[in-house]
C-alpha cells in the first residue's frame, strides 16, 4: 500500500476509534471498577513495520484527544506513549523462529491465538498499570487499584479480541 493510502487509512481508523470510544464505550463500566479502553486498538493494531517515532506521535495524539474529552490533563497520553514505547520490545520478544514476514500484521488468525494472547495481555497490563498508578499519584488504596487494573484488563482484552474476530479477515488486517 502506498504511503498516501496508508496515511488516509490511519486517519480513518483514528476517527472511528475516537468516535466509538467517546460516544459510547467510555460510558460502559464493569463492576464499577473496570473500563474498556477500546481506543488502544488503534495503537495495538498498527502495522508491525511502522517506525517507532511515528507510533509514539500517534499514541500521544490519541491520548491527548482522550484527555481533552475526559479532563484528565495528560494522563491518557502518558500511558499511551508508554504503551507505544513498549510495543516494539514485546514484538521483538515474540518474534517467530524465522522472523516476521513482510505481510504479517497483528491479526489473531495470522499469528495464532497464543501469540496474540501474550501480545495483547502484556501490553494491556503495562498500559493499565501505568494508567491507574499515575491516576492515583501514589500507592494508597492498593487493593482497589489492583481490582481496577484487573477488571479493566479483562474488559479491554475481551473487547479488543471481539474487534479482531469481527473486523479482521483471514487474509489481511484492517479496521
Amino acid at each position: 500500500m502506498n504511503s498516501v493510502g496508508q496515511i488516509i487509512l490511519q486517519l480513518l481508523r483514528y476517527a472511528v476509534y475516537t468516535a466509538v470510544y467517546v460516544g459510547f464505550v467510555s460510558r460502559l463500566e464493569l463492576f464499577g471498577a473496570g473500563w474498556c479502553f477500546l481506543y488502544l486498538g488503534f495503537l495495538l493494531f498498527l502495522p508491525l513495520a511502522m517506525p517507532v517515532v511515528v507510533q509514539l506521535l500517534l499514541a500521544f495524539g490519541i491520548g491527548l484527544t482522550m484527555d481533552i474529552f475526559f479532563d484528565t490533563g495528560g494522563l491518557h497520553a502518558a500511558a499511551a506513549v508508554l504503551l507505544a514505547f513498549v510495543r516494539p520490545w514485546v514484538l521483538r520478544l515474540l518474534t517467530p523462529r524465522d522472523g516476521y514476514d513482510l505481510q504479517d500484521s497483528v491479526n489473531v488468525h495470522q499469528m495464532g491465538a497464543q501469540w496474540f494472547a501474550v501480545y495483547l495481555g502484556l501490553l494491556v497490563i503495562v498500559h493499565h498499570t501505568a494508567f491507574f498508578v499515575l491516576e492515583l499519584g501514589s500507592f494508597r488504596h492498593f487493593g482497589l487499584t489492583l481490582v481496577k487494573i484487573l477488571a479493566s484488563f479483562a474488559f479491554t482484552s475481551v473487547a479488543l479480541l471481539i474487534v479482531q474476530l469481527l473486523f479482521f479477515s483471514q487474509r489481511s488486517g484492517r479496521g
Partner: protein
Amino acid sequence: MSNLFAFLFRFSGLLIFGLLEAVALYLYITSNSYHRAAFFNSANAYAGQVLERRMQVLDYFSLAEQNRRLLAENALLRQQIFRPDTAGREADSVALPPLPGDTLHRVRYRRTAARPRPDTLLLARRPVPSHDPVYPLVPARVISQTQRAVDNYLTLNVGTADGVVPGLGVIAAGGVVGRIKSVSAHYATATSLLHSKTTVSAKLRRDGTVGSLHWPGDDPLHALLDYIPRQNRLARGDTVVTSGYNAIFPDGLFIGVVDDFRKEADKNFWTVRVRLGVDFNRLSHVYVVHMPTKAERDTVEAHAGLKPTAEDVAP
C-alpha cells in the same frame, strides 16, 4: 558531528519517548492546580459540542427519571416559597394532661427547655436567593462527568455568556456538587466534590462545629469530615452543611449526613464518614451559585494579610 547525528538517529525512539512522556506528565500535573489556565480540557468549544450532542442522544433514555426528579425539586421549592409565616416559630410552653387526683381537671403548662442556640437552626435554613437579579442562580445541565476516577470533573453547558466565571460553586437539589474550574463561552468544567484536591469548609448543623470535608478517593457515596475535635459528641445522622467560611457556598447548604465516626488512637480528631447528599450517579441538573460579596471579602482578607494574594485562594 556525524557521530552526534548517528547517536541522535539511533536513539530517536528513546528521545521522542522521553520528550512526549515529559510533556504528557507536565500537562497532567499542572491540570490539577486551580489557577493554571488549562487549554486541554472539555470546556473548549469542540469537545463541548461533541459531548453536548452525545448528551442529547443519551437524554432520551432517562427522560422519565429526570422528569420525576425535577418535579420533586419543584415541589420542594414551592413549599419554600409558600411557607406559612409560623413555620419558624415554636411554642414557648407545652400543655400537660391534668394530674390524676385533680378533680377540676386543670390543664397544666410547662416551659420547653431552652435550646442551647435558639437561632442557629433558622440561620442554617437560610434559603438561597434565586430571584436576585444581579447575582442569579444559573441553572445548568451536566453534559459529561466521571465519578469513579481519583480526580473527577463535570462539564456543564453554561459559560461566560451566562455569567459563569472560574471559582464559583456548583450545587444541586441534593446538596453541594463542586466548583467551576475553567470556562469558555458556552461551556464550563467543574471539579467535582469527588476530587482529591477539593476541600469544602463544612460544619455540623446541630452544634456549629466547623470542619473540613474532603474525598479520600475510593467511594463516590461517602466523604470524610476532618478536624472535628474529640471532645465533641457526635451522633449518626447529624446533618453536615456548608459553613460559609470560604465565600464559595452560602452558609447552611446541605452536604450530607454523618454515617459513621470513630476514634483513632493517635489523633486528636474524630474520623467522621459523611454520606453525601448528592447522588453523583444520577446527576443531571445543577445550579451555579454566585456569592455577591466574594470579591470584596477576598480583598479585605488579602489586605489583612490572611491570604497571600487575591488570586491564590485555597479551594
